[in-house]
């Protein structure tokens, strides 16, 4: 039933991987636009460092570690999928999802504390950027976790194993975005 179109590969690269790269390219410019705006504003407003001092670098660092670890398990999942071990791939993706969920839970606590201290999205444009950029990123984490769950479910049955690599690619991208966000929002005081 699948159209022939979906089975061809004139470039030699599987279509799905090609599509994920284009998806990532389009996301790069979205985050690029947001972060470039933030950097330009930040350079123009020295006073924002007073606000930035209230972000919790340790929580940010912990989340960075969590995401990096989850990327590692995504790589291990890809390796297992390449070897045809769907069950192990699913397990590794499970660890990655656990990392994603941990990241989100920590983020939720972090934001709750900040909001309780009165740092809301409208209190200052630094905080507007903080919540918008991190929030957009968190949505990507959430989407990644959900899709990964679907991929893992079929991988467990040794089906559609090539998708393990694709969701891994996406997950690395989400990870790299955070690698930019962490110093920009937390370390730069």
């Amino acid at each position, binding site marked *: 039933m699948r*159209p*022939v*179109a979906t089975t*061809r*590969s004139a470039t030699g690269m599987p279509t799905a991987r090609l599509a994920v790269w284009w998806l990532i390219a389009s*996301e790069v410019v979205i985050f690029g*636009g947001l972060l470039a*705006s933030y950097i330009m504003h930040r350079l123009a407003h020295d006073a924002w460092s007073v606000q930035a001092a209230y972000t919790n670098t340790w929580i940010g660092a912990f989340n960075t570690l969590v995401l990096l670890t989850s990327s590692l398990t995504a790589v291990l999942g890809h390796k297992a999928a390449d070897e045809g071990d769907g069950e192990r791939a699913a397990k590794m993706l499970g660890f990655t999802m656990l990392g994603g969920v941990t990241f989100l839970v920590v983020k939720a606590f972090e934001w709750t504390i900040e909001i309780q201290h009165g740092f809301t999205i409208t209190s200052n*444009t630094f905080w*507007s950027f903080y919540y918008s950029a991190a929030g957009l990123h968190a949505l990507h984490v959430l989407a990644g976790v959900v899709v990964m769950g679907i991929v893992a479910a079929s991988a467990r049955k040794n089906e559609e194993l090539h998708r393990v690599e694709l969701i891994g690619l996406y997950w690395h991208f989400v990870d790299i975005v955070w690698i930019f966000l962490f110093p920009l929002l937390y370390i730069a005081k």
Partner: protein
Amino acid sequence: MAESAHATHGDHHEQSFFIKYLWSTDHKIIGMQYLFTGMFMALIGGFFAYAFRMQLAFPGLDIPGWGTMTPPNYNALVTNHGTIMIFWVAMPVLIAAFGNFLIPLMIGCDDMVFPRLNRLSYQVFLLSTLVLLASFFVPGGAFGGAWTAYPPLSAQATYNLTPWGAPLWLLAVALEFAAFLMGGINFITTTMNSRAPGMKMHDIPMVVWMIVLASIIFMLSVGPLFAGAIMLFFDQVLGTGFFDPARGGDPVLWQHMFWFFGHPEVYVVLLPAMGIVIDIITVFARKKFFAYKVVLYTTFAAGVASFTVWAHHQFIAGIDPRMAHIFTVTTLMISVPIAVIVFCSIATLYGGSIRFTTPMLWALAFIFEFLLGGVTGIYLGAAGADIYFHDSYFVLAHFHYTFFPIAIIGTFAAVTYWFPKMFGRHMNETLGKIHFWGTVIPFNLIFIPLFILGLAGQHRRIYNFSMYPDLAKPEFQDLRVLATVSLIVMLAFQFVFLFNFFASMIKGRKAEKNPYDANTLEWTTESPPPHGNWKELPSVYRGPYEYSVPGRADDFWPQNEPS
């Protein structure tokens, strides 16, 4: 490598209307969905133009079909006319409708590589359409801050007085972008990976190349505006201050984000129209396209260059004046690749045997009209002259001389040319030519007066010029009336098209496989193509423009014919 299309094609059972036309993953059906939605929106956008042109010609008149025009009405109509014509007509018709219909047929495969993503793309687009239309029926009415939506006006309801209209407008535009990102990934990957065996890079028809390049330009330019839309939405709904100078924001930032997308967007819609025109010209001049490779690589260059000109929209917007010199140079230089494409199209006619069919007339009219739109851009690219012309009717006439050929003439060229393939029947040529002259002549009579008014200093988005003594002279009003009457004439002739379109769909002369003796692959299958497009998918042996090859009896040489 012979691929036989899947067996289910021949004997698929009767499907319900819903499954067949509204839930289909077939690229042809999705193309039609985009086409019909785009045509419907064009009627709305055209009606808006009628309503506000009536107000300009006859201020205060009780406009038939609309009523009395208030200033908020006027602003909302002008804003949404622009928004609709670019995002809901030009893009869905030129890129999505013809991209969907043509790409698989012209590269010789049976569908898009992601058929379900394709369906989702249309559904999101339809949702965006409904959101935009809904914004007219909310408290405060539709957004009226121009299609560029400059903050702070667009950011705060206290300024724009459309607390619902502005966020809904923004939401609709963002959804539309999302739909086109999905569609774009499909177009790009399908063309990259699913070409017929033997179809090399230089065997791809120009129109497919152009749609793919347009999708790439769109994908790489829309990101910052997407981020900007999120920021603006938060400003509107949550009350953040991204674009509010009182709270450390910067309203000019939006302009950069908007035009970083907005100028490439011109090429996003221009390129598919150029591709359509090139394909039609080669067929009806029976000529090989002049300098295919040169045009292809210049188009790449134009795509890259289109990212370097955006600030010419902001010369007088308060950017650093020294920047203007750089953007003047880049803007003047982008005329060069566009000139290459246009010159090569004209050169293709040289030595041809030109048949003036309706699609050919549209294609030639595209070049004829677009030339004026192109050259008047030079005035606006030169920063010094732009001081006078910025936000005048000169700008308005200039971009209508580019966008009308692109979105309207290009669309009519494509619809009349591929109609037999889409619906299996021919359109009526006589009605087609009546519609052609009835559209193109009034078009010039609308916008040449507006060029003159712009030269005379008439500024844009003003609903009643009687308050400006210098602009309220009777001679000015005469030109406004001329433009409005011409518009009404032009709109009236569109009913000829609608009649021809729908009547031909039912009663037109049956179309054969290849009525124009064209080379490209879509003409090698039935009209209309069955589900799956071919019984056996074609292979490709040569480029798409081998017309009038010396030593051959036929003056065409289909791409799939083994030598």
